């Protein structure tokens, strides 16, 4: 049973990884290898495989297979990227594995309530990754909100599904109750997606959770839940033939609000991760529109949209992660000139834009257009379609920023050329020289927030206060003021991902524990990068092997493979104005530190830069007696290349999926709206055999005997009552192959499905 193997791998590796968290190397290996094994297992799933469990069954379908394949590929890529970009979250691969397993379970179960409960439970592992390390209040709150959202949506779905499905369901249901159940399910999906007006959770989780975890939190698990809800609605609500116009209008309004306001919010955000969050909300609007359509013509585009949604949103989150890895910031204002400095990331963004917006003929564009047309009718559909195209606004804004003059951080972009051992030596030497530069003049003044980005003369607090605490950013770049050490991007990453306290202004001459005063060159005068500085005298006196080991050890520390030795010093910018760059709290393991860093209270502001230098020296010294780890050193040197290449690959996958590759449309078409996730799971008219593809009542698709794209027509005499098989007329559904199938046997739990007009 191919699905069982996937479940065993995902749940087994996920649990094993969580249980071995105290041994990071083992835990990371288990997680990454588990994802690889899960991918292989997902590729080997045989659609149609059926495992009977009690009175139900677990069935593999094309849609489920494609969903978990996309999810596993995205998860694996994001985990490797997170490892390379220093935003590793120790629960990340395990949470993704367990989430994928729960999604596969939910999409494969033929029981509607069980399927909904399982897909709802797929969101629970997100709680594990919503909390960053070290723990901060915001992360805990985000996790609590995530937990509440998942459990409440699960409860809503269980009650709603019980009303009109299940073994018996209510018979002779009044339309009001059916409408309430329908609304409750749509509400659950809206809460899960973070649709407007339930979007505050999404906004906050994007500000606290690791970027690599956003696809699991915002795209993968909600899309799986929405898929199960769509199956339930198509199989239990649409078949009642009740118009439910008021309920559908409410859902359409929510969907339209998501599309339009999501664009607005994404366009005005200053942070790329927040743009990702609101773009997720915007695209979720089309999934909400799909919930409002009872026409079978929407089955295929709705499911196609969900499949593409998972990949494109994962790719966009991965791109945001790569941007942070490359430039050390996700603030759009600080990314001026990125496009010219990082053409591979520009290519990746172009792929994501093409996969998200699409052009006529691509699956993604056609699916969006069909959903808008079917849900809204002709005048309003234009608004929704234009809303989809308006994604170009926020993508365009990011791109426009990219063609501007290079900001200091962007100028420090080290590039993604493959690095060999020789480069590692040279780079490590340059880093040592840089951190050994003399302390520059100090000054006082307001923080960057107070001064504003245009005030280049005023001291700025470098830092991104949004995620993982403050992220000190090396605006000064190097001692020569050329704005271009190749290590600056690395230092931007290494400066702090540990949740330092918020930046505070430093008064002249005052001592701020935990902060280092770093002079900064005016951002208005960035220069093009030059070649790496040659190693200085101090560096040359050091053993190259020692320096390489320092890099290797740093890589191991970041990967959680070795205990942290010390904080990393902020790089020294040229003489000029001052920045306040808070240092992360001491996390050392008592290694052979040569001198106390500023976190140990080494004195006033006059020695802060020197403290930074000592911090860097301590790192190197401590690593001097480290283990030989050439591979880790090369990984450290090339990890940005890996991150960027994976971003390009993920965007390419999204583009291929959006273009209809991998059989997206076919898999979506095969997911007929039977109860539960399985489309071929219900016993056939003779009871024993499940329906084959030719037996499913999935009209309105291009391979049906009727006119292509024509919706199912429900005969006026089809007085169908949810759950009440005895009330249904013995109408016959005509399958695609022309086979006549008793209608009452098609619906879930004996409910009747509408007959199909040939």
């Amino acid at each position: 049973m191919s699905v069982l193997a996937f479940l065993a791998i995902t749940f087994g590796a996920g649990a094993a990884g969580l249980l071995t968290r105290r041994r990071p190397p083992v835990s990371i290996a288990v997680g990454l290898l588990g994802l690889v094994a899960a991918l292989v297992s997902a590729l080997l799933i045989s659609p149609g495989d059926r495992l009977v469990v009690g009175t139900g069954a677990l069935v593999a379908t094309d849609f489920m297979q494609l969903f978990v394949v996309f999810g596993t590929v995205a998860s694996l890529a994001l985990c490797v990227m997170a490892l390379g970009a220093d935003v590793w979250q120790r629960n990340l691969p395990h949470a993704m594995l367990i989430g994928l397993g729960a999604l596969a379970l939910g999409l494969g179960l033929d029981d509607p309530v069980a399927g909904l409960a399982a897909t709802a439970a797929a969101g629970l592992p997100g709680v594990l990754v919503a909390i960053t390390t070290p723990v901060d209040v915001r992360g805990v709150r985000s996790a609590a909100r995530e937990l509440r959202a998942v459990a409440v949506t699960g409860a809503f779905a269980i009650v709603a599904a019980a009303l009109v499905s299940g073994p018996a369901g209510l018979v002779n249901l009044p339309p009001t109750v059916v409408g309430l159940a329908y609304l409750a399910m749509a509400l659950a999906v809206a809460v899960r997606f973070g649709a407007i007006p339930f979007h505050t959770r999404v906004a906050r989780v994007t500000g606290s959770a690791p970027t690599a975890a956003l696809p699991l939190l915002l795209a993968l698990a909600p899309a799986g839940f929405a898929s199960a809800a769509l199956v339930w609605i198509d199989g239990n609500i649409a078949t009642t033939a009740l118009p439910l116009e008021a309920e559908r209008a409410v859902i359409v309004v929510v969907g339209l609000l998501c599309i339009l306001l999501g664009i607005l919010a994404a366009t005005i955000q200053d942070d790329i991760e927040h743009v990702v969050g609101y773009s997720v909300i915007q695209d979720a609007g089309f999934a909400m529109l799909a919930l409002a359509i009872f026409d079978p013509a929407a089955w295929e585009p709705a499911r196609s949209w969900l499949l593409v949604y998972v990949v494109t949103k994962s790719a966009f989150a991965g791109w945001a992660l790569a941007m942070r890895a490359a430039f050390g910031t996700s603030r759009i204002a600080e990314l001026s000139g990125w496009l010219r400095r990082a053409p591979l990331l520009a290519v990746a963004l172009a792929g994501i834009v093409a996969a998200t917006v699409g052009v006529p003929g691509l699956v993604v564009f056609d699916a969006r257009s069909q959903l808008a047309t079917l849900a809204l009718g002709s005048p309003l559909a234009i608004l929704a379609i234009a809303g989809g195209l308006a994604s170009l606004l926020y993508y365009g804004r990011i791109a426009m920023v990219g063609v501007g003059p290079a900001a200091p951080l962007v100028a420090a972009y080290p590039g993604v050329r493959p690095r060999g051992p020789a480069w590692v030596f040279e780079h490590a030497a340059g880093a040592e020289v840089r951190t050994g530069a003399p302390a520059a003049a100090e000054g006082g003044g307001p923080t960057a927030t107070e001064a504003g980005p245009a005030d280049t003369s005023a001291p700025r607090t470098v830092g991104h206060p949004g995620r993982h605490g403050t992220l000190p950013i090396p605006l000064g770049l190097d001692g020569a003021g050329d704005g271009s050490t190749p290590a600056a991007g690395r230092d931007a990453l290494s400066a702090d991902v540990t949740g330092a306290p918020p930046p505070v202004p430093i008064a002249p001459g005052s001592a701020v524990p935990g902060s280092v005063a770093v002079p900064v060159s005016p951002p208005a005068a960035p220069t093009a990068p030059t070649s790496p500085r040659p190693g200085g005298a101090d560096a040359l006196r050091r053993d190259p092997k020692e320096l390489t080991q320092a890099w290797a050890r740093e890589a191991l520390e970041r990967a959680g493979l070795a205990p942290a030795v010390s904080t990393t010093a902020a790089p020294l910018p040229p003489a000029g104005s001052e920045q306040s760059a808070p240092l992360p709290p001491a996390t050392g393991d008592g290694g052979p530190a040569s001198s106390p860093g500023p976190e140990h209270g080494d004195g006033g502001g006059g020695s802060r830069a020197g403290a930074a230098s000592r911090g860097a020296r301590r790192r190197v010294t401590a690593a001097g007696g480290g283990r030989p780890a050439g591979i880790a050193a090369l990984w450290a040197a090339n990890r940005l290349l890996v991150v960027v290449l994976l971003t390009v690959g993920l965007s390419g996958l999204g583009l291929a999926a959006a273009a209809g590759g991998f059989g997206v449309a076919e898999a979506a078409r095969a997911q007929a709206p039977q109860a539960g996730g399985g489309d071929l799971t219900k016993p056939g008219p003779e009871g024993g055999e499940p329906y084959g593809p030719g037996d499913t009542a999935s009209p309105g698709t291009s391979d049906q005997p009727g006119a292509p794209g024509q919706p199912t027509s429900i005969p006026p005499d089809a007085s169908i009552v949810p759950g009440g098989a005895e009330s249904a007329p013995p109408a016959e559904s005509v399958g695609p192959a022309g086979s006549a199938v008793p209608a009452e046997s098609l619906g879930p739990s004996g409910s009747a499905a509408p007959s199909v007009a040939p």
Partner: protein
Amino acid sequence: MIGLLDLAASIVVVASAVLAVSARDARAGIVGLTLASVAAAVIADPLPDPIALAFRVVAALFAAYLLWVTVRETDTRTGSTALGWPAETMAAAAAFAIGLAPSLLETDRAGPDAALAAGFALIILAVVPVVFARDAFRLGMGLLILLDGAALVRVGIAGTPAPLEQLTLGILAIGVAGATSVVALNAFAVSGTLEVGVTPGPEDDR
């Protein structure tokens, strides 16, 4: 017709849930939650498949154990209810009576009336902790009671769940308890209390 055994079990469920949401000592709350979850699993007509029933019971016990471990490692004091246990009891009783109303109206349902009544009562009891709890433990307690209530409503409307459904309901309960444990432990690591506060705080201002 209300079965006496189902009625007795449903009263145990509701009383235990009142204890769970009202207790100031988290350990007492866990005892109440465990009783409610175990008793809720047996309110069905016909009774679930023995294996499925056993799984639900084990899942309830495991969820309670996860919470117990959390409390043992953190703090046994919890927020309790601002309304007080008499008010909670009255609210639960009112919801229980409302839940019994469909039986008086003789509507067609597949499950026992007591299940619907107990389900309504549990959902009402869960509202305050789910919406207003600033305490991770209490939030998790409310969510587990909410899920139990939803499952009971489902039993009352659509009859005894199939084994697969029992399996997923048990997994969901364990998952919620585990996630609660994660949130509570991290909250305690940050603040020294179980306080979370899911409403926006100053640190949410960007």
